């Protein structure tokens, strides 16, 4: 394991992880699914800052995963109401919070195919705080209406639903999701971006209060925790991410990694 370079510039992934860690709040249990390195970073960061709380379950990890009942335990645990925060993304996300992890175009012969819905068709309904994240903020990804609803952002009142989206974090900004109004509200704009740019690059309509602030960058202590404590833990399941973002490799001795 290597220590990272403490003085280098803030990376976008670090900002996003910090924003997400703040969104996690004071909860008991955060779970992170497959292929989610930035949310994993955020969850581990929240745990470091909370002195061991919340519990963090990284689905693909052996170390950061207390489950002993096999793959079903994550979903049963959510069904029991014991998962407070989860993360979802989408090939497309629309203004009603619907997410598409399946395809664009005709489902049976699509123009674009995504991997599939994973656990979204269930977890989106039963985890109280689902944080959506998508690093590509464009009219291609944030659309008026998704081509395939892997999981809907809201449900009619008579449909049993204890969870749903609370926020959407992109490379340009953070939105809050208003469940009653069933739409997003711009929350903060990341440094170097503007409201105008966000309006231009977002395919759906959203609420935009007059006084939008800039997304705060992580403070030095947070950044130090992330780079020195969290990053080495990521290498177990996201070795390429850990190397690219934090210059860390699990396969190489520390001195080599420092030179990378």
């Amino acid at each position: 394991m290597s220590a990272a370079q403490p003085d280098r510039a803030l990376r976008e992934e670090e900002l996003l992880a910090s924003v997400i860690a703040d969104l996690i709040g004071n909860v008991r249990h955060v779970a992170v699914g497959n292929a989610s390195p930035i949310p994993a970073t955020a969850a581990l960061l929240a745990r470091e800052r909370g002195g061991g709380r919340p519990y963090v379950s990284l689905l693909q990890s052996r170390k950061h995963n207390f489950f002993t009942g096999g793959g079903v335990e994550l979903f049963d645990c959510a069904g029991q109401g014991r998962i407070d925060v989860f993360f979802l993304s989408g090939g497309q996300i629309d203004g009603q919070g619907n997410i598409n992890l399946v395809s664009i175009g005709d489902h049976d012969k699509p123009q674009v195919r995504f991997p599939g819905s994973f656990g979204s068709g269930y977890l989106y309904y039963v985890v109280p705080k689902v944080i959506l994240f998508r690093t590509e903020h464009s009219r291609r990804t944030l659309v008026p209406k998704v081509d395939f609803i892997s999981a809907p952002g809201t449900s009619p009142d008579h449909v049993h639903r204890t969870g749903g989206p609370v926020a959407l974090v992109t490379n340009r900004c953070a939105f809050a999701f208003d469940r009653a109004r069933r739409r997003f509200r711009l929350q903060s704009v990341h440094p170097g971006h503007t409201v105008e740019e966000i309006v231009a690059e977002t395919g759906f309509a959203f609420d935009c209060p007059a006084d939008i602030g800039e997304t705060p960058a992580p403070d030095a202590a947070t950044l130090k925790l992330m780079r020195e404590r969290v990053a080495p833990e990521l290498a177990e399941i996201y070795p390429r991410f850990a190397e690219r973002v934090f210059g860390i490799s699990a396969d190489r001795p520390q001195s080599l990694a420092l030179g990378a």
Partner: protein
Amino acid sequence: MAAIRPLDDALSAIGDGCLLAVPREVSGVAMEATRALIRRGVKGLHLVTLPTSSLQADLLIGAGCVDVLETSAVSMGEFGPAPRFTAAMTAGTLKIREATCPAIHAAFQAAEKGIPFVPLRGLIGSDLMTHRPDWRTIDNPYAEHDPIVLLPAIRPDIALFHAPMADRDGNVWIGRQRELATLAHAAACTIVTVETLHEGNLLADPTLAAGTLPGFYVDAVAIAERGAWPLPLPDRYPADQAHLTEYMKRAATPEGFARYLQDFVHERRAA
């Protein structure tokens, strides 16, 4: 009861067109067995993944072994989209039964319990429902105006997976990968490859027994050292990152994939 058999012999029950169930990447994927099936030229599989897959599904799809795929997702994870799955889907040549992870888990558990269906929360309002006419919405009889979805049981012909060890009685140590027990309970026939033979009986030691699938449920065991390669085996070895990078490069095109099959499947090469 299982005897330890040579790999090709152990796989003989996997016939063309069968309903083959396989676990997710982190639970122990029988990759050496998968390569053997491709070499043998198995066809028309109805492949069900519990609940997702990566290289295993991509290889079988690319090699033309799969007619129908039932899955929550096929992805190469950090390496990106699964290239042959994506190509087959956009070409319209692969029939897919879309699912979501807990629905596949629940449907296997229904088979394990011998019940014809099981309810599950969520799902309502998802387009998964329009593509899965076998998932039916009923009114929860225990509440007013409370729609809930029922899922029919999934009863595979064959379950196939890879585990750290088995003994001569066919008992298989699966550790925390309990879904492998569900897979075996749900399936009519279970075939397992293992890293090593455990001398002695896994059920004799209470500590080992707690993580053991009894041989009663296992029809064939074959030894396949590094049998999950290039995928990881929990607590034993990590994924072969370099090989998977190489795979992604080659499998980006049909020609590259054909060369990959030639070099790493038909030629029986390994790392």
